[in-house]
């Protein structure tokens, strides 16, 4: 049985390529394309004040690596046109009287127009803008105090924040995404393979042939799952190597814990895939059903958007999602370097899910024949 499945899966070079190729390609594209950081966002400036202060503020923007002042405009509607056409994302309008207010020790306001059709970019850009503005204001205030009372400048109270980003010191997006991609690709691969496993036999009519042989139910299930399990392990190892050696993601935890986490997750995915395939009659059905499950699982895994920002209901729901656990486990092992002492609850939940799914699919399997 084992041998038959192996031969069938690896028989033609086309399929063989399909088991490893897509995963690799996706890994590379994800590693390069998925970035939430923003750099060199193009900005247009309308400076109606035209004083030393306003020019100073603009040069603060130009100097930060987040913004790129691409155009100085003379009229307000040029900003509107440029944003409509997508020439730049942000327009900054400094009204006349800006410097006057600052010199009077008052707050001055600056209008910022942001193309928010991508809300994440807009949000991050606004954050950076106020950071640059706050730095400018701080420097300006210290300068003024220095001019008004030069002797006291050493004692101006100032609190600074030192940032220590742990685990990902360079705040690299790749480090964040690569472990998550690994989990997602495993899920898609396994769900696809298993979703087809049983159904194909039924559709081609070879399931009856298998049934007349003296094979037992659990033997059939094991025969079906072990090859996929091994393929999954191989793919996971391959992707981990790409992650560490190509993208430079550190592996700080123990490799055995990593292997254990991946294996438990593979079993959970196999169980779910098998269960779904016992429910379907045609390959098309089985594939659509698998897709129906993988999409929400991936969206709710905390892979792209943080779980802590989700409403409480979805946070609770995500405990039943093995992908959520494996993404957390992978990230923790790769970046944080923690071990089983911290990860055991997630491992246990995944193992429970796997046991449940596999049992139910073995039990369901006989019924599905009739």
């Amino acid at each position, binding site marked *: 049985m084992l041998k038959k499945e192996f031969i069938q899966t690896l028989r033609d070079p*086309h*399929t063989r390529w399909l088991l490893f190729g*897509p995963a690799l*390609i*996706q890994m590379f*594209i994800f590693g390069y*394309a*998925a970035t939430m*950081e*923003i750099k060199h966002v193009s900005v247009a400036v309308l400076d109606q004040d035209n004083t030393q202060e306003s020019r100073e503020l603009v040069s603060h923007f130009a100097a930060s690596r987040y913004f790129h002042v691409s155009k100085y405009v003379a009229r307000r509607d040029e900003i509107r046109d440029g*944003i*409509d056409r997508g020439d730049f994302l942000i327009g900054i309008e400094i009204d006349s009287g800006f410097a006057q207010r*600052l010199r009077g*020790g*008052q*707050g*001055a306001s600056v*209008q*910022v*127009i*942001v193309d*928010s059709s*991508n809300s*994440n*970019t*807009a*949000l991050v850009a606004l954050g950076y803008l*106020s950071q640059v503005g*706050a730095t400018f*204001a*701080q420097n300006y*205030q210290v300068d003024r*105090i220095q001019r*008004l009372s030069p002797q*006291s400048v050493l004692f101006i*109270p*100032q*609190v*600074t*924040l*030192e*940032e*220590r*980003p742990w685990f*990902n010191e360079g*705040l690299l997006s790749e480090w*964040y995404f690569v472990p998550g991609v690994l989990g997602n690709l495993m899920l898609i691969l396994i769900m696809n393979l298993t979703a087809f496993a049983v159904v194909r036999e039924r*559709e081609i009519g070879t399931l009856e042939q298998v049934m007349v042989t003296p094979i037992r139910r659990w033997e059939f299930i094991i025969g079906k799952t072990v090859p996929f399990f091994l393929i999954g392990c191989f793919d996971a190892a391959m992707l981990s190597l790409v992650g560490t050696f190509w993208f430079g993601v550190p592996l700080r935890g123990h490799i055995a814990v990593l292997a254990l986490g991946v294996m438990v997750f593979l079993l959970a995915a196999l169980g779910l895939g098998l269960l779904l395939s016992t429910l379907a009659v045609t*390959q098309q059905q089985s594939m*659509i059903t698998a897709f129906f499950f993988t*999409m929400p699982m991936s*969206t709710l895994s905390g892979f792209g*958007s*943080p779980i*802590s*920002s*989700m*409403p409480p209901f*979805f946070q609770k729901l995500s405990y039943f999602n093995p992908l959520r656990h494996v993404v957390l486990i992978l990230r923790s092992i790769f970046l944080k370097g*923690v071990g089983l002492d911290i990860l055991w609850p997630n491992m246990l939940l995944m193992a429970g899910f796997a046991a449940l799914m596999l049992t139910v699919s073995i039990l369901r399997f006989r019924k599905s024949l009739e």
Partner: protein
Amino acid sequence: MSWRRIVAMAHKEILQILRDPRSLLVILVIPLVQLFIFGYAVNLDVKHIPLCVYDQDGTQTSQDLLKHFQATEYFNIVSVLDSYKDVVRNIDHGVCSIAVVVPPQFAEDLHSNGQAKVQAILDASDSNSATIGMGYSQAIVQTYSSEIQVDWQQERGISAGAPNITFEPRTWFNEDLESMADLVPGVVAFVMAVVGAFLTSLTIAREWERGTMEQLISTPVGKLEIQIGKLFPYFLIGMADTAICAGIAVWWFDVPFRGSWLVLFGCSMLFLTVVLSLGYFISVTAKSQLGACQMALLATFLPTFLLSGFLFPIDQMPVVVQWITVVLPARYYVSILRNVFLKGSELRLLVGDIAALAAIAVLFVVLATRSFKKRLA
């Protein structure tokens, strides 16, 4: 070309789809589920970041600073710690993603030589949230800093005031910065690409696998007739999915709709033509349903999800990846949809995108038609 044969072919395909009502239902439900999940669960705005504080100073001044963290909606103080070891443990366990550590003698430093430092330790394994959280905490500390400077000036009779800058952001097109509004166009494109290419990629492959291809070949039906007849039912399903998505987005989630419905449906038809032809091409090439499905996944899921600008801004990608996106139909479709929903700009601004989409559509239709040979391999 015979109209009658096309209708017969389409009729057979529709019967085959209708015979499996469960799949049909799932196809129509998938967009709904996706929309609701994106609408209710996915929130890219980072708020209520779990925060731990470790106050080694324990003075009025340090407590004042920490109160500033408590007062914003960006942070939730989840625990107050009293050793550095606890900080490490809490971050390791993921209890908090930021820990603010006030060093001993914070107040004394501030009063004697004016310079005081606070530490923010961030769990940067989620680099996006960490970056945003870092920005918020910087802003809080800077506000605090300028507040104490004002007090300090008053004590000494210096009147530099508090010159500060406030930004009045006006966010266009998506005024409330709702992730939902800008995700919807992406979800529509995504669902259409996947449904279109997935389903069609299986249709020819299934005929090969079941051996009914021989039967089809022996009939007088022409290859163009097969193509149109096979794709037409899926075209209808795709359009229904688009209508469902757009309707729910506008009436349930109150996503603005500022462009014209005509443009929306016209461009959706173009995009559907592209993905259906792509699926057809894949299914002709792959010959097994498993292979077809894997290839369709690679050709649609990935580009629409990652490279279309739906989640990740294209102009932030490496240049090579940006070149790749030039040939992706999803990129133009997402851009058109964003326009139609959020910007509602004039048609002349969309001409480029529509032309690109149309060109790709022609290319794919030709490719799909030529790939299918009406003979046994």
